[in-house]
């Protein structure tokens, strides 16, 4: 796995072994709109066959970055290679290899689902049968429905199908589940996994942490024009080094004496009935062992680890401060 580590705690990791040529390589990408710099030296790589997530607060340049990678926007400086091709200089060669679901786009209102699939597969040179595409993405029953009449989930399903009409090797999905209800989001996640399972590399732009944690093999957090962290969801959470919270019921204060001296425990709070301990992640086992040694086995003993969302907020707010 090729990983660009920009977070200090991750940057100390040993260099990765040589891997396959990255599907996407972005180096020193810069882009400004007027006087406002949006991307300021952004660098990252995406491996073939992985789902790479780009996270970031609104307005941090996520969409700009992926639109530059697709050749839909020009860049001010830096190097971008997608499947070895420069999107700005080789758009004609790259376009048949890339599928795209844009954050903001539409089809003619009266265009029917079947017509859209037929049109886009024809434009792609009929490398995919539009009827098979409709079947695969559960769009056959909507074949005669006009675009304007589709629900949000149905539109997203259609957009994913259209993004695959040229059998792409790299697929860009920008805020795919924006505005969808929870059931439709989960259904869409399964579709994204299917895209990856079919062998495509997926770049997913999102600001839903549960979506990123569920789908992405690796994530990059974009802030102030560059990646402030990059790695697997687990790597990001562990590298952030956030404390865990241990909670259980205990009415006798005496039973808690000395718990604050267990290695890794940061603070112990007791309100007379409930105990809450803030500790380093590895201390949770030691606390459990100490309670067991004291013949205490509270049935509601829980350890809450920091989530990706906690890490994201911590990272982005930390930088913002």
């Amino acid at each position: 796995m090729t990983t660009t580590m920009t977070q200090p705690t991750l940057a100390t990791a040993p260099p990765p072994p040589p891997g396959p040529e990255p599907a996407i390589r972005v180096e020193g990408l810069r882009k400004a709109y007027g006087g406002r710099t949006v991307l300021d030296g952004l660098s990252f790589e995406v491996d073939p066959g992985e789902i790479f997530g780009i996270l970031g607060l609104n307005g941090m340049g996520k969409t700009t970055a992926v639109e530059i990678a697709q050749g839909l926007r020009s860049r001010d400086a830096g190097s971008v290679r997608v499947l070895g091709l420069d999107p700005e200089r080789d758009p004609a060669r790259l376009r048949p290899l890339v599928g795209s679901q844009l954050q903001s786009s539409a089809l003619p209102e009266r265009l029917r689902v079947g017509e859209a699939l037929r049109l886009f597969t024809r434009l792609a040179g009929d490398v995919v049968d539009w009827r098979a595409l409709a079947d695969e993405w559960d769009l056959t029953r909507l074949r005669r429905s006009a675009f304007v009449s589709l629900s949000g989930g149905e539109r997203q399903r259609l957009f994913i199908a259209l993004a695959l009409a040229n059998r792409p090797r790299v697929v860009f999905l920008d805020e795919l589940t924006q505005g969808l209800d929870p059931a439709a989001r989960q259904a869409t996640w399964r579709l994204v996994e299917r895209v990856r399972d079919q062998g495509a590399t997926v770049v997913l732009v999102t600001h839903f942490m549960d979506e990123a944690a569920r789908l992405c093999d690796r994530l990059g957090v974009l802030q102030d024009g560059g990646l402030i962290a990059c790695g697997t969801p687990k790597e990001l959470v562990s590298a952030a080094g956030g404390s865990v919270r241990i909670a259980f019921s205990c009415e006798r204060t005496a039973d808690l004496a000395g718990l604050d001296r267990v290695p890794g425990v940061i603070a112990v709070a007791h309100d007379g009935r409930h105990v809450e301990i803030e500790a380093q992640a590895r201390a949770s086992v030691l606390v459990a062992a100490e309670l067991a040694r004291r013949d205490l086995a509270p049935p509601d003993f829980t350890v809450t680890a920091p989530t990706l969302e906690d890490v994201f907020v911590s990272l982005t707010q930390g930088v913002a401060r």
Partner: protein
Amino acid sequence: MRTLIALTRTELRLLTREWAAMLFAFAFPALMLVVLAGVFGDLPDPEGFGAAIPSEHYVASYIAIPLGALALVGLPVMLASYRERDVLRRFAAFGVPAGAVVAAQALVSALLVLAGVAVVLLVAAPTYGIPTPADPVTVVAGFVLGTVTMLAIGVALGLAASTARAAQAIGLLAFFPMWLLGGGPPQRVMSGAMVSVADVLPLTHAISAVRDPWLFEGAATGADLLALGVWLTGALVVVGMLLRRRPQ
């Protein structure tokens, strides 16, 4: 070419579902023809219409209404709507350049102009009769150049307007003066200032390039064709700049 054909076929199919939007371009010229040609009649009026019979003047002039309405209103509104709603981005992301979508739209508009002209002639035939073209080759040349020029201007308007509403407002503002000065009353009854303005407008030349060789053998249309050529060149330069600057 494959892309252009696929897009044009789709646009034509979509048009059959939004025919009401094009009703103006078909109904308005027929209505105006019946009213105005009826008012001025078919008696010679040398002071107003020179050597032309008034009804023949209007029959030959009013094929410009579907041309003007579709080129200055219908086409720009459709293009601006596609840009506003990010339809062009959707196609661009699939490798279909905005220019191809624009060309398909212009091609569909050209077919609609032909249909609009056919409606005018169908209405004129049983009511006032259709004058036999005196110089049919020049009529066709003038019609083709006039249509291409007006559609190029329409594309420029559609790409320049930020929204479909803006395109509609600009298009209507351009269409009515152009039609009234270029294809309405004969220039003999206009003031000098009105004639000067009319002589600059492209629709005036598009109409003259068709009407004059239609009604008079040996009519001089060189100045009209030259003016249309200048307008076409200017419009294509603007279209090229807009497609480069704001392709989606």
